[in-house]
């Protein structure tokens, strides 16, 4: 009988499949994109941007200062008054559609550069970041000449010059989230990408240049925190939109207080992912994995706090550990890679600091045995069990591939615990029971609540937070309303 044989196990390895980089064009040095032209920074300073997967330098990027920001704002103001705000809305839409189409045409190049500069896997930048970014432009282009229908019975006016500061976790996508609705509503833009990931925003500037968009409508000023501060403090900026950390968000809110500038903030999170005992367990486990390890956990709405009903906790934790071992960590350009590189050395240090704190607090850590590339910044997917609400790792945003797992007994208990946080960006609920889903969506204080799925984004759907996760919404009609004056 065959079952008695001892069959040797033959390993079957996948073929490495590195996405090619020969088709991308990166300049050695990038200037600032102001008034439709590439302008040298007034300080003459440039900084390097590296590939976090191997620490190689990709390019040098201009370090914009106050003077450069002033130039950009002046260009934006001029373009606003003379061209963009007086242009027929249908004409505006044509430009935005054209940008979207040009992005689609260069999708492969954008995806590869995003992966090189940010460390995220090619699978994600190719299948999620870039297509979604294109879709935001398509979606808002559609609204440009229909603003009266977006806000019925109101007169809709544009705001003026929008200063936009975006983070490093979804560089191109965040640029699209911010630029597309601003342009559709008739505003002009000064945008600052994050210092570790400026390249796709600069490629977007090239696309904008190629689209023939009137000079000064979109200006891209690269630099560090002080560059961003110069935008926030500029007296001729009418609106600030910021996505990033809660600390910086608070500073910005203080800075704009009393200035009359409109403000939207999309900040940090410590989102709860809740698994009930009747949930489709295997799909929930996938959802937890996707919720926390998507983009190496560099996601403001990452499901970083897992709540498991106590009677299925052992099963869920065992399945999670098992699943971690089938994740591929490595070169983000490899199509097989599930977990890529941490965005920067600094961020890796932050994550490691929290992992250390977690261990010191007595939480039990689990990491799969996976080989870590010698060069570059990597962190294996990490679970912490035996965690309480009082643990630092369950309270503060880690922004890395670290999941804390807590158990609960009743629905009321988990609602209390899930809401017991200064943040309120997102939550996930996993149950087979429809009534329970509706109950939780009304009681959880979070901007987005997913049921039996996680990390789903769509241009038509608003995104934003409660409490210290910020205010204002991006995406959908709500996202448009942040860029208009209703009279």
């Amino acid at each position, binding site marked *: 009988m065959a079952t008695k044989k001892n069959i040797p196990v033959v390993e079957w390895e*996948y073929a490495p499949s590195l996405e090619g980089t020969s088709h991308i064009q990166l300049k050695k040095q990038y200037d600032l994109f102001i008034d439709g032209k590439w302008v040298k920074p007034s300080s003459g300073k440039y900084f390097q941007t590296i590939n976090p997967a191997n620490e190689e330098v990709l390019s040098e990027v201009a370090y914009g200062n106050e003077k450069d920001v002033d130039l950009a704002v002046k260009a934006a103001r001029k373009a606003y008054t003379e061209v963009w705000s007086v242009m027929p809305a249908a004409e505006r839409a044509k430009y935005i559609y054209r940008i979207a189409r040009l992005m689609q045409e260069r999708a492969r190049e954008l995806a590869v550069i995003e992966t090189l500069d940010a460390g995220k896997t090619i699978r994600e930048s190719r299948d999620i970041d870039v297509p979604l970014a294109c879709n935001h432009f398509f979606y808002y282009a559609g609204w440009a000449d229909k603003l009266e229908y977006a806000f019925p019975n109101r007169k809709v006016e544009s705001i003026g010059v929008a200063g936009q500061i975006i983070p490093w976790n979804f560089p191109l996508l965040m640029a699209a989230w911010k630029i597309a609705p601003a342009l559709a509503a008739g505003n002009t833009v000064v945008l600052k990408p994050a210092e570790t990931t400026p390249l796709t925003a600069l490629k977007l500037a090239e696309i904008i240049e190629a689209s023939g968009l009137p000079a000064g409508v979109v200006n891209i000023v690269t630099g560090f925190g002080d560059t961003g501060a110069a935008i926030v403090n500029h007296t001729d900026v009418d609106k600030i939109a910021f996505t990033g950390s809660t600390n910086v968000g608070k500073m910005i809110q203080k800075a704009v207080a009393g200035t009359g500038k409109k403000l939207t903030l999309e900040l940090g999170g410590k989102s709860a992912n809740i698994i009930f005992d009747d949930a489709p367990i295997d799909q929930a486990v996938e959802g937890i994995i996707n919720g926390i390890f998507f983009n190496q956990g560099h996601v403001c709405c990452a499901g970083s706090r897992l709540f498991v009903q106590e009677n299925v906790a052992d099963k869920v934790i065992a399945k999670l550990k098992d699943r971690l071992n089938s994740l591929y960590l490595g070169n983000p350009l490899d199509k097989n890679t599930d977990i890529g590189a941490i965005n920067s050395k600094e961020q890796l240090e932050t994550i490691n600091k929290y992992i250390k704190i977690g261990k010191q607090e007595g939480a039990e850590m689990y990491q799969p045995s996976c080989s870590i590339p010698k060069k570059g910044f990597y962190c294996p997917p990490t679970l912490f069990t035996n965690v309480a609400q009082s643990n630092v790792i369950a309270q503060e945003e880690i922004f890395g591939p670290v999941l804390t797992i807590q158990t609960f007994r009743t629905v009321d208990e988990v609602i209390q615990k899930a809401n017991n946080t200064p943040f309120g960006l997102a939550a996930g609920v996993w149950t087979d029971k429809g009534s329970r889903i509706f109950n939780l969506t009304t009681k959880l204080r979070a901007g987005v609540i997913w049921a039996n799925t996680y990390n789903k984004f769509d241009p038509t759907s608003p995104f934003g937070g409660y409490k210290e996760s910020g205010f204002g919404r991006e995406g959908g009609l709500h996202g448009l309303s942040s860029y208009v004056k209703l009279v």
Partner: protein
Amino acid sequence: MKKNQDKKNRFQLEYLNSPAVDKVGVEERVARFQTRSIKDASKMQGLKMALNMIDLTTLEGKDTHGKVKQMCYKAQHLHDVLPGLPSVAAVCVYPSMVKIAKKEVAGSGVNVASVSTAFPSGQAPLEVKITDTKFAVDEGADEIDMVISRGKFLSGEYNYVFDEIAMIKEACGKARLKVILETGELATLDNVRKASDLAIYAGADFIKTSTGKIQPAATMQVTYTMLMAIKDYYDKTGIMIGMKPAGGISTSKLALHNLVMVKEVLGSAWLTNEWFRFGASSLANDVLMQIMKAETGVYQSSDYFSID
């Protein structure tokens, strides 16, 4: 290696304690298996593995000794132009063809699998099904592919379905039992999971998706759901159960996607025809075509591959 063979297998309520299955989530998971990179050496290894896992099948009313003989020859001589190819795992036939098939493949290492239990509908009294099975085993079948009573399952008579599988298992003796769920008739993934658990606890050595007579057959969603049942059972008991998707897998690409899924869900230990099979009649030639393409650099027309 432990065997799934408890002769005093009695139905217990906990066997129905199957987890819910979310179709949307399964579809997402399955899509990920299709993006792994299989090429060059990895592809060649995968193709040969797939070839060696095929149950070459003929299950038609018009089957004759002649047809079965031809198929048995093909099973051992897949493509003699290319030396060093593995044979298929088994030939799969009706009980009346077992004897002739057994004679034709004797000494080759190719097993003979026989469908039974009033295949494909299963609409016959239990005694008839037992007789059917015993006949096939007596004729020399190494493996029995039974069908579950889908009508009973859908009307909630899980106890009946369970006992029937357990009794057929007993009738199998030394032959390995594959239990066909006919997932195309069960309609939901929740049902597929429940039927998988029932079959496994009742003594199945293998669980199998379909008869090949009903569409849809072995979709990746269904196979994934069944693999998860096997995994949970293994994690709980340490007993390995085999898996056989059958029907609808006719291209190499789909076969490789299935193998990726097996590797990632169950692990490499299942990547052998001892634990994984493809029930297919046309897959073998597509795999051979891909192997020849890899060897020679050009695609050959289907006329260069025999169609027994």
